[in-house]
């Protein structure tokens, strides 16, 4: 079983649990660091933390803030535990993007890559979304001016989030894809949201993990990268700078292959999907660690078997040998 297959399995299972789990009575709570979007309706198996965050801030009472503290604590624990592996292995919206990506690959269409400059300029988007999710709910709670507008905003980021429109659509609920004609505010917000959704669908068909670099949830998760238990590590001497890890990376992180000094290569956008480790052709150049213990490691043999150059070696076999060697 390759890591890619394992990851697909995890993504599929979590998609069912988080999006359809409600059908069998699963409720994992309101602090999930992933797009467990409540807008899918009764079938949801948990609630996206961003939704709760905006909701609680929007209430604005003392009790609400206390509840927020509690939520934040649980949220943090979950993130510290596996870091942004939530994005690579669990997020239902990540899964939807990966499926669209798979369709592209099946048709042998190449992917698009944004130039460095453009990527750097777009980096501010997630911050804008983040502040929308953080500050506007406070205005909702304390509508000191334009109260009618504030009242219609409620969970402002959710109205913009493509998850709100696409995830219900995926499970066959086309009603979500509609402009809300309640007021000028709702019309604007839903039109914007639908625009982002359309862009994301088209984008994800042409570019790997199109939405993730702009996702405010991803931003929140990335703040924990220094203390989270899972880390991506590199042995700079073993690395040949072959750029393979950059080319396979769905979020196009250059720093992993360019790093020449530090061992820790868990960068902000990294979704810990471990594709880079899987495809790195050098023994032990890249590895993933859990609490400092190596759990997965790049091997030259693994590389050649994934390129279908040598018959598929059972992954477990050479991984085991490689791991024993490091953890000695």
């Amino acid at each position: 079983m390759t890591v890619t297959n394992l990851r697909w399995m995890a993504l599929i299972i979590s998609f069912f649990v988080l999006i359809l789990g409600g059908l069998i009575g699963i409720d994992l709570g309101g602090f999930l660091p992933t797009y467990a979007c409540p807008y899918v309706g009764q079938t949801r198996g948990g609630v996206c933390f961003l939704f709760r965050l905006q909701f609680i801030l929007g209430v604005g009472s003392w009790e609400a803030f206390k509840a927020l503290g509690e939520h934040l604590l649980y949220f943090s624990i979950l993130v510290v535990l596996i870091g942004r592996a939530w994005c690579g292995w669990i997020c239902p919206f990540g899964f939807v993007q990966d499926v669209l990506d798979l369709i592209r690959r099946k048709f042998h269409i190449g992917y698009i890559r944004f130039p460095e400059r453009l990527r750097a300029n777009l980096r501010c988007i997630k911050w804008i979304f983040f502040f929308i999710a953080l500050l506007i709910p406070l205005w909702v709670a304390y509508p000191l001016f334009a109260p009618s507008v504030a009242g219609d905003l409620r969970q402002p980021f959710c109205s913009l989030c493509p998850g709100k429109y696409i995830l219900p659509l995926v499970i066959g609920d086309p009603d979500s894809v509609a402009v809300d004609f309640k007021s000028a505010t709702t019309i604007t917000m839903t039109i914007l949201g639908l625009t982002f959704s359309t862009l994301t669908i088209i984008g994800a068909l042409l570019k790997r993990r199109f939405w993730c670099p702009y996702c405010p949830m991803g931003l929140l998760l990335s703040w924990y990268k220094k203390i989270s238990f899972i880390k991506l590590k590199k042995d700079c001497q073993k690395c040949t700078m072959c750029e393979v890890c950059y080319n396979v990376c769905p979020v196009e992180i250059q720093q992993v292959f360019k790093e020449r000094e530090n061992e820790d290569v868990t960068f902000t956008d990294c979704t810990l999907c471990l594709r880079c480790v899987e495809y790195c052709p050098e023994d032990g150049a890249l590895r993933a660690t859990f609490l400092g213990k190596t759990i997965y490691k790049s091997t030259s043999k693994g590389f050649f078997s994934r390129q279908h150059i040598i018959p598929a070696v059972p992954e477990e076999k050479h991984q085991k040998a490689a791991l024993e060697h490091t953890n000695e």
Partner: protein
Amino acid sequence: MNKEISQNKSPNEADQLQKRKDHFARNLARSAKTVLAELEENPDLPLGMHYFINIMREVFVKDRVHQLLLPSLHQSTNNRKIIGTYCIMVPEELIYAAGAIPVRLCGGSYEASCIGDELVPRDTCPVVKASIGFTSFNLISLYQMCDAVIVPTTCDSKRKMGEELSKFTEVWMLEVPHIKDSEGSRRQWLQQLYVLKKNLEKFTGRRFTGRKIRRKALDTSIKMIGSAQYQARRLYEIRKSSAPVILGREAMIAINAYSYATAFEWTKAMTGLNDELEARCHKGQFICSEHTPRILLASCSPIFPNWKIPSLIEEMGAVIVADESCMGNRYLYDPVGLTEKSMTDMMVSIAARYLMPCVCPSFAPNEDRLFRLLQMAEEFSIDGIIYYVLKGCVIYDFELIRVEKIMKDKNIPVLRIETDYSSEDIEQLRTRIEAFVEMLGTKKRNSLATKTLRF
């Protein structure tokens, strides 16, 4: 193809020229034969080596390269174009996918370098001299057989060589950026490869159909070369073992032979050799004791038939377990890493493979090479480095200081030798190498002795 030589010459001159050519060709055959005979004298020569030795014999002694590259007279292979390449930045995958056959032309013959001497400035390196000599004089038919020659713009000499070669044959320059890690240069390199792809398509296509390089064909050729690389890596893995099972000068011939063989045939032979060597490892059939000093031959490439330095080192009682030349360990090391089968991904991955991990000194900064050397020194348990500079190769010589510095920290001695293809300085080199190897031997014995004492 030999425009300059045969045209505009009176019959008498042409006659003389022919005589000179025959003279040089005879000498070349003789020196190639000597090297091969020396290799074959070794009673421990692995059986699998005969294929590679034979390739060299066919190309340089018997001058029958045609049979090697186009073995059958079958229509489909007979029409195939042969494309000469220099350096290691020319993507062979594209050439194979276009239905052509690549051969690497970097020259290693003393005789050819003497001819080249008259055509280029005195300070040019012998590789370039020999390559020009070979092409201008048609010493062996290999150079004449090429329908086009691709010259990457690497070091100054190679670049100007491209210009000179265009007097004799069709030359395509391939612009290699000299700074690897800027995004712009990488994009430009990718564009270059797209242009190359188009040119190849035009060149190999039949008149009207204009055969395209198809996705499937490219995928197949990537896999084919990938298999060759896998076998090459296996050979390096074997050479890492504590007691050697193959001499460096033999292993290097095997890799060098890839230049003149088709990837498929070569891989088959290499698989056989590796199996044989692995069996030797299991049986403990080592060719020398583990006290033998292990040498890393750094910098310039020994290219057949110039086997002067590898032979000298191993005659003096050391063993070359690795080299970092672009005709040796580096030639077939870095693979193309595909994740999907789209043309984009293939082209991007090919571009990455030929540019980014390449540690040719024509790049600056070239820090990667230092990392690579450190890693090799560790992996191959190197006792000493012989830093082999061909006269005129300024760029490798430039990096000596940095290499010496990092190796000093690792307590690995470095010996710089500068030479060319002639055998004039052989005695002097012998003395220096002998002293160096002796020093390494003493050091190694002492350290092993203290180690056993301690345990």
